[in-house]
């Protein structure tokens, strides 16, 4: 039966070359020849080789005995019969017998039109394996590159079952790949099986916990980031407080307020909750919420008050550099360090040194001013020296007789200076001594410090009195003001609180402070962290205002992310529960098992049976008993799923009891889904296609067509470009093409090579996904280029590394397949062009006309690097009629492309300066010149090209050699292409709706049909 296909091949070849119908010999003519030469050994009594031919004397009954007749033909064809010692058939007799068998088989084929044909169960090809893993895991691991390579069968494609072999080495490699994948997976009860770019490997429980935590933490941040205010974004604190006030006083609903005032409804809700909260207690937070609660009912007054609260709130931050204000420093507050007060005092005669006790009592709250420096003009003065000097001067002035007119002012000045001086070296606590130049201030107090005239800058070195026996209780603020003194009996907003570190008091105060910090983080990252900290809140929302609770985040995100959040929280819940109960552990196992079953279902491309489910579960539990942790046990199941024949083979099964009389059966919906997705995507069905298979709707004609159209537009349909077109037109693997003489062509860099490959893949991907016309392959006036490749082709105006469609390139002798670097290079010798190889490529591969191999004893041909002498040699070659038959058809096609050099550049002259002759003349007189001429010639031969395309496409779709019985379908494909102006999808739809595609042969047909 297989020989039958080859016979067909020859018929097609002949047909394309111009088939001459000859009258088929009659059975009555043939029978006597068989009688004379065969019956002697093949009769009812003597059935050599179990063959009795005599019984057919009356009726050959070819349909029922097709196999025997094929054997008869073959054995005569290849000279096995009659035996060497016996009398031979004449060549006329041979021709008559084999001709008759062939003719009868042709008739039979027509009668069998639409036969699904013999399709051997197909293993995943290496490309399909990688694509399938990519779609199962969501990541491209490219594991198959070190598998044994697939070769071509059928119509020249790797997806032909017969040539997809299995071996111990292959199984070893499948195991290695599956183990590697499993090692990249995390298997958790909530999130299920997740494949990561890096190897995960064995994880201890603490690691699992840490990673679940980390995963969720990062996820929260990623998801919240787009919705949270960034640094320097206006935060509109006052507007939010005003909206809350309006809600309170004017009963406007929050969501309406949010809409009207263009505020975030989530943030507004958070604000509302905060300003009304008493929990957690925090006097720092109260600066906002208590003040807000005390807002007046009058809108104008409230408004002004709100702006003041807002200003106080913002004063904790550095507006120029988020994350660097007092809010940030507070955690580092340390009494042993000096914290100077300093600032401009221009035009001021006094400043106020404010020492606050933050309203929590003043125990320990004593500050020591150790040095005061004041700038006057360009001088920097020691304040106390100045004080002494000025006092002496003023006293002298006041002591003069008669007293000066400004005596009162002088006295006042002396008094205030003396007040400062009196403080020097005095400590408020009895018995304490301090250096004479040090001033001690007990909070709460405001000290009015007189300044020299013309002072413009003041620096007051101040530190906490650490010798104070009560210093453990310290919580003191100091700051200076040039205008109104601050209220030193309360927290002074925006001012650091100084304490002794590691005391109970400092801890309490910091804790109090942190509540405010959490509610109003001073930078974007910290707002993100607050969302991420939901992880630790056990479902309760945080107090931050610019923040999302899980509920709020859920409202912002889509269903998929909501589910993901739930799953991740689940993981966290499962792993973070200390001392889990058996019920809890069972829940974990159940969840993991359900993920594994789902994975198996997807990997095996069909529902799994109860029996299979039990076995999957069993492996998990057996592995657990072998003391594997849960994840490792689950990974065993993953490996087992991925090395199963159910994954590696695309099996199409027969019902348990096959009806021997039914020659073929329709595929079930899942088998059809696999055929479809491996045809269009070289990969596994996706969610939508699986759904259509699960509910059986895929078996409906219109659903099948809709799915087909959807899938052709999907990016995954690029597989048709890479696999189908790539294998047919031989550019598959061009990205590793290493047959260019790199010494002669240093321009042929790996980058350029990758670009050339990309060009042809892009071209076919667009052809498929945009449903362009198949005639563009030969005649399209466009291609896909980046700057580097455009330069190589001499096409101006393309800049940058990105590929894009470039149209109107006929003047540059590009457009379509014929002008592509990958094709022109692939069909060249390493160091020169070969018109024979290029011509043969166009003739055999593109047009599909079989040319027999060169006859034995080929006369010598001098192929040289010089195109003109090469042409001469080839023309000379053709004077031999044995060669001419093919070369007069092949060479002219290649000659026309001579103006492209071995790496696809246009050339007008050869290396020696000789003019390139790119004319070709076919037998029959058709003449053409160069790229344009050849293209026009091939366009005229489009039906031949379309015939080849449809045959290749059908062979690829079915994974087998095309058969005589496919003739009608091929004609339908060609007709549909013609009717739709060549739309690629037209041919695909014909295939997917065909009897061949929708059905499979049963056991019965296998035994009796070709």
């Amino acid at each position, binding site marked *: 039966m*297989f020989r039958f*296909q080859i016979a067909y091949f020859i018929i097609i070849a002949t047909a394309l070359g111009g088939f001459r119908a000859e009258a088929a010999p009659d059975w009555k003519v043939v029978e006597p020849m068989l009688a004379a030469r065969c019956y002697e050994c093949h009769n009812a009594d003597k059935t050599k*080789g179990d063959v009795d031919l005599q019984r057919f004397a009356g009726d050959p009954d070819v349909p029922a005995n097709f196999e025997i007749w094929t*054997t008869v033909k073959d054995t005569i064809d290849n000279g*096995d019969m009659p035996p060497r010692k016996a009398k031979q058939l004449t060549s006329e007799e041979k021709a008559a017998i084999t001709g008759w068998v062939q003719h009868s088989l042709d008739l039979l084929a027509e009668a069998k039109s639409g036969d699904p044909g*013999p399709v*051997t*169960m197909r293993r995943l090809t290496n490309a399909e394996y990688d694509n399938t893993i990519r779609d199962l895991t969501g990541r491209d691991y490219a594991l198959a590159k*070190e598998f*044994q*390579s697939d*070769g*071509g*069968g*059928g*119509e*020249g494609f790797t997806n*032909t*079952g*017969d*040539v997809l072999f*299995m*071996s*111990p080495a*292959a*199984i*070893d490699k499948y*195991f290695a790949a599956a*183990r590697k994948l499993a090692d990249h997976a995390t298997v958790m009860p909530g999130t299920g099986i997740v494949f990561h770019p890096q190897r995960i490997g064995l994880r201890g429980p603490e690691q699992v916990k840490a990673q679940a935590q980390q995963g969720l933490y990062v996820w929260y941040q990623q998801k919240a980031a787009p919705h949270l205010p960034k640094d320097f974004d206006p935060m509109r604190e006052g507007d939010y407080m005003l909206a809350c006030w309006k809600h309170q006083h004017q009963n406007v609903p929050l969501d309406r307020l949010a809409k009207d005032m263009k505020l975030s409804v989530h943030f507004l809700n958070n604000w509302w909750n905060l300003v009304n909260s008493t929990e957690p207690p925090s006097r720092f937070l109260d600066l906002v919420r208590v003040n807000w609660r005390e807002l007046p009912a009058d809108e104008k007054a409230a408004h002004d008050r709100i702006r003041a609260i807002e200003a106080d709130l913002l004063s904790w931050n550095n507006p120029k550099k988020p994350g660097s204000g007092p809010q940030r420093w507070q955690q580092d507050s340390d009494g042993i360090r000096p914290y100077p007060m300093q600032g401009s005092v221009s035009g001021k005669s006094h400043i106020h040194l404010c020492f606050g006790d933050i309203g929590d009592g003043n125990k320990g709250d004593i500050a020591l001013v150790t040095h005061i420096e004041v700038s006057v003009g360009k001088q920097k003065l020691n304040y106390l020296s100045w004080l002494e000097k000025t006092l002496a001067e003023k006293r002298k002035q006041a002591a003069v007789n008669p007293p000066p007119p400004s005596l009162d002012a002088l006295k006042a000045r002396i008094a205030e200076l003396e007040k400062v001086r009196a403080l020097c070296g005095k400590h408020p606590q009895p018995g304490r001594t301090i250096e004479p130049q040090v001033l001690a201030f007990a909070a709460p107090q405001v000290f009015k410090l007189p300044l020299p005239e013309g002072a413009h800058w003041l620096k007051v070195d101040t530190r906490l009195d650490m010798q104070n026996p009560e210093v453990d209780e310290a919580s003191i603020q100091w700051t200076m003001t040039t205008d109104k003194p601050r209220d030193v009996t309360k927290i002074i907003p925006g001012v650091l609180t100084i304490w002794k570190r590691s005391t109970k008091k400092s801890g309490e105060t910091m804790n109090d402070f942190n509540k405010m910090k959490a509610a109003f983080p001073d930078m974007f990252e910290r707002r993100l962290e607050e969302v991420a900290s939901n992880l630790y809140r056990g479902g309760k929302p945080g107090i931050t205002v610019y923040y999302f609770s899980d509920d709020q985040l859920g409202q912002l995100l889509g269903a998929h992310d909501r589910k993901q959040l739930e799953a991740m929280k689940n993981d966290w819940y499962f792993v973070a529960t200390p001392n889990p109960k058996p019920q809890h552990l069972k829940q974990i196992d159940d969840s993991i098992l359900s993920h594994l079953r789902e994975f198996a279902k997807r990997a095996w491309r069909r529902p799994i049976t109860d*029996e299979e489910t039990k076995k999957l579960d069993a*492996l998990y539990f*057996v592995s657990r008993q072998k003391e594997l942790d849960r994840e490792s046990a689950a990974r*065993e199941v993953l490996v*087992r799923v991925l*090395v199963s*024949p159910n994954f*590696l*083979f695309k*099996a199409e*099964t027969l019902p348990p009891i096959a009806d021997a009389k039914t020659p073929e059966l329709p595929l079930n919906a899942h088998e059809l889904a696999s055929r479809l997705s491996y045809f269009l995507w070289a990969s596994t069905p996706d969610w939508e296609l699986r759904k259509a298979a699960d509910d059986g709707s895929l078996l409906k004609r219109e659903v099948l067509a809709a799915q087909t159209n959807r899938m052709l537009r999907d990016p995954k349909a690029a597989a048709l470009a890479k696999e189908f077109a790539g294998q047919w037109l*031989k550019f*598959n693997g061009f990205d590793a093409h*290493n*047959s260019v003489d*790199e010494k002669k062509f240093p321009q042929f860099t790996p980058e350029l090579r990758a670009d050339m490959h990309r060009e042809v893949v892009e071209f076919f991907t667009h052809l498929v996904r945009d449903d362009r016309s198949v005639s563009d392959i030969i005649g399209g006036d466009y291609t896909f280029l980046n700057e580097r490749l455009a330069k190589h082709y001499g096409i101006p105006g393309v800049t940058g590394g990105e590929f894009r469609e470039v149209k109107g390139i006929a003047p540059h002798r590009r457009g379509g397949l014929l002008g592509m670097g990958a094709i022109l290079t692939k069909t060249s*010798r*390493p*160091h020169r062009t070969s018109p024979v190889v290029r011509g043969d490529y166009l003739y*055999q*591969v593109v047009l599909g006309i079989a040319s*027999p*191999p*060169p006859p*034995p004893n*080929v006369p010598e*041909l001098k*192929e040289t690097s010089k195109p003109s002498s090469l042409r001469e040699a080839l023309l000379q070659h053709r004077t031999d009629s044995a060669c001419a038959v093919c070369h007069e058809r092949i060479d002219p096609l290649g000659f026309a492309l001579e103006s492209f050099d071995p790496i696809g550049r246009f050339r007008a002259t050869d290396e020696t300066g000789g003019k390139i002759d790119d004319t070709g003349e076919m037998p029959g007189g058709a003449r053409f010149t160069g790229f344009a001429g050849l293209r026009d010639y091939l366009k005229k031969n489009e039906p031949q090209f379309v015939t080849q395309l449809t045959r290749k496409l059908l062979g690829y779709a079915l994974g087998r*050699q095309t058969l005589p019985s496919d003739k009608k379908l091929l004609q339908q494909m060609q007709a549909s292409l013609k009717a739709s102006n060549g739309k690629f999808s037209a041919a695909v739809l014909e295939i997917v709706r065909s009897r061949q595609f929708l059905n499979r042969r*049963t*056991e019965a047909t296998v035994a009796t049909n070709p």
Partner: protein
Amino acid sequence: MKTSRRHFLRGTGVALGLPWLESFCAFGAESVKHNTAPRRLAVCFTGNGVNPHHWGAETTPGGMVFKKSLSPLEGLKKHVNVFTGLWNPTTVEGEGGHYPKMNVLCGLKVKKTTTDVEVGTTMDQLIAAHTGRFTPVPSVVLGTERPSYSTDSGFTSIYSAYISWSTPTTPAPKEIFPQQAFDQLFDDGSRRKRDKSILDLVREDANSLKPKLSSRDKQKLDEYLTSVREIEQRVELAERISQAETNGQGWQPSVKTVTLGRPAAGIPASSEDHLRLMFDIMLLAFQMDRTRVATFMMNNDLSNMRFPSLDGISGGIHELSHHAGDEHRLSMYQRVNEHQVKLWAEFLAKMQATNEGERTLLENSMILLTSSLMDGNAHDSRQLPVVLAGGGGGTIQGGRFHDLSKDPNRKLCRLHLALMDRMGVRVDHFGDAENALAI
């Protein structure tokens, strides 16, 4: 489905064949270790034929004299036998310059098909079925190039990528990646042990799938089942071998640890590096007795392998083989021929330098160098280039030239029978031959 006459013929060639899988249990009691150094067999193949003008040798009063292409073997002459005239008669029938000749190791006709490939179980695999009972790896099949896709000639081009077939319809998997070959040979077996329980389960998968398949698909699935079974048996065997080694039973290999670094992933950029690395892997596998049978396709038939490490050579090897008598191209082709022989000779020299006690590794081995064509330029396979190195464990006298061109029975399969016999596979016929060549 009825079996054709040809199928039947192929079947008989395999009568003894692949039985080790089935009869594994039978040798359970047999010791995996013998007391003398084992014999090894390697077949090295180069596609596209050779330059016939300078290939071979002649006999002179002073003994055998190599022609130019074999000159790199000069220092090893006393270990080398050169044959002329051997052929596979089936290859000269039918059409096609290359594919029908890809039966070098079995002599049976290459089936013209694009789908259901069929040649015949090859002699190396029959030997591996036997000697594989004593080594962790039954045989190693190495190569340098992938198959291509073409089926346009009516043959699948798969044929040009394989000379070793483990069944008439399944090519033995050929490894072209040095790292993978290395791992396959020198893995300690622990990985497979871990896979054992899963192997059981996937075999059950296959067994429950099988009844639901057509007979054609069942055959495909059988490839899977056989492979799984073989791996399982390998796991058991590896344990017994390592036990025997630990106990110091019988002959012990002279090299006990892996002396070669694990090769980098991927394929070396230079074909010369690639070839040398594969030879080194083969050498170490023999030295450590990881396997006793190796098959190495130094390049595919129809290969366009290039030799950038040789100055002044432009073009791929297939193209060069069609030199068309052009002097310049012939000289390039000649250099490529000598280069290949030189690499082969380097491998032989390293084997000769490996002392295994009574004899060297080379003296214990039989290393064949051959091609599917003699004159690639004319697609002529009426005789084949055949060079045999090594002493076959003291059974083959070297330094001789065998001119069989006048011998009426000059079938290459007779040589295969002679080699099989020395490797312990005793059959009365193989391929198209019915008696062994006396060597």
